[in-house]
């Protein structure tokens, strides 16, 4: 088995999930709890990776971060490296690609928190941030766990975006799914089969566990029943 690819995928998924937790919670909080205009636009933007082909997303990330773009040039001036075809570039793409898998369950869980409790906390003098941290987030925990698990699993399994933005550099951008693709190209079906089976088992266990937890806490994101 291609252990370096497996380790890389897990590393990528872990860091991506952590970033999504930091970025996704406030975004989801804003989407679920604010009544400001223009919400629909942000909703659509967040959901976009669900419907866009990974190649389209990858293409735009490639162009936006490439050596000719302002971001790419700035990055190169500071670090001396290009951002595309590197782990960092892959990270940016992964965060964007998995955004809905974190934000949507977060937002669903936040909306399910009784509005009365939020207003009660405000009237008791708690600021919006304090209310969010002490009341909303704890009560939305099952949904937050679901979002974390799903974005982790989704990042482990991504292929198209990685291929577009990361390329295929062993130890740096060669993830599990790319490794399987390579093995098949090289007619190494045995190794591809082992890696595929591992990924299959991993994904099933993760989703089964998530649904189990959701059932127990009474929430049924992402598939209602």
């Amino acid at each position, binding site marked *: 088995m291609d252990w370096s690819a497996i380790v890389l995928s897990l590393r990528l998924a872990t860091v991506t999930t952590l970033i999504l937790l930091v970025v996704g919670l406030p975004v989801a909080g804003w989407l679920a709890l604010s009544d400001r205009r223009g919400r629909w636009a942000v909703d659509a933007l967040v959901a976009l990776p669900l419907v866009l082909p990974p190649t389209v997303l990858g293409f735009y990330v490639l162009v936006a971060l490439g050596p000719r773009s302002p971001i790419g040039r700035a990055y190169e001036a500071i670090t001396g490296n290009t951002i595309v075809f590197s782990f960092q570039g892959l990270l940016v793409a992964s965060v964007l690609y998995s955004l809905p898998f974190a934000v949507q369950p977060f937002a669903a869980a936040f909306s399910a928190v*009784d509005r*009365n*409790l939020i*207003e*009660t*906390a*405000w*009237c*008791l*003098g*708690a*600021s919006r941030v*304090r209310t969010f941290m*002490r*009341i909303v987030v*704890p*009560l939305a925990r099952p949904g937050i766990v679901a979002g974390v698990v799903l974005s982790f699993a989704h990042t482990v399994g991504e292929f198209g975006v990685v291929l577009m933005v990361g390329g295929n550099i062993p130890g740096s951008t060669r993830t599990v799914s790319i490794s399987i693709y390579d093995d098949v190209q090289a007619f190494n079906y045995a190794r591809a089969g082992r890696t595929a089976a591992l990924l299959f088992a991993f994904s099933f266990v993760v989703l089964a566990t998530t649904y189990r937890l959701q059932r127990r806490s009474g929430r049924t994101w992402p598939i209602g029943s």
Partner: protein
Amino acid sequence: MADRLIASFLRQHAPAVSIRADLELDAGDKRVTVLFGPSGSGKTTILRCLAGLDRPQEGFIRFGEDVWFDAATKTNRSPQQRRLAYVSQDYGLFPHLTVEQNIRFGMDAAGVRARGRVETILRTVHLEEMAGRFPAQLSGGERQRVALARALARDPQLILLDEPLAALDLPLRDPMRRELRQFLRSIDVPSVVVTHDRVDALTLGDQMAVVSGGSIRQVGPVHEVFSRPIDLTVAASVGMETVAPGEIVDSSGGLVTVRVGSSQIRVAQPSIVARSVFACIRAEDVTLETSPRGDVSARNQLTGRVTAIQPEGGVVRVIVDCGFLLSALITRPACDELRLTESSPVTAVVKATAVHLIPREIP
């Protein structure tokens, strides 16, 4: 001594739905103000505007020196800045926090720090043993106590309660109502209580504001509003049983004689402007006799026939046709003693002071 709340505002929900409120609330002997009216009349919206949860379009809300809301200067203080306590209908206890943490939440957020304060407050509401429990482990009455304790712990200058007894089971409602009354009386903080229940209003309120059709119709001492509604809408809201149209035929010596249907009633109401009136009589102010007694000057004795007898719990509602339909509320033993049956003759006795006149526009 707590400050004075003066509010006059308009909130528009939809183009056709607006809520108007004019309210003045004094601490002192008028500590508890009841916002009374049927559901959908706008009571909760008024409460939410006072709390800062809803924003009116016009008017102002002032508490003492503080301007909470002013449409003219675009001032709108947040709920956090108003230092009040808002207790929603289902009490809004945080399910993931214990009783003690719930109470402490308001104190920490408001920056109230006093050692032993939580213990003192838990003792006031008799919940010392419940400090470590979660809301789901409490009874309805205990939940209400925790909500009140938490409201008090925050050290508010105004307490707002939305239908505080509606979430309770019927047998629990009576004792909790008395307890709530005592609680609101014992603290030195003015409160506004929203309710659609007559008994709640009579028990809890010092002052009462009748809300109907999106505006406050009448404000006054509870008993006065109940017995002297200013118009038909308020009369209907407070459940005035007998409202009959009549004409003033004579007025002398502070006693007005009104012809209602084929009867004449004397009413002690010195200042009446209109000639056409509605005579309002509360059913509990009517007593029934089998036959007329000797003339008693300040009482009206109206002879008629019983048209309906409706038992209502411990009392009996008797409808008498004495030239107009008069509703009387008497005890069950009194009803048995009078041997009333449908169409039996009866004399209804009503004090001249128990009749209230509302001016009537002739169509």
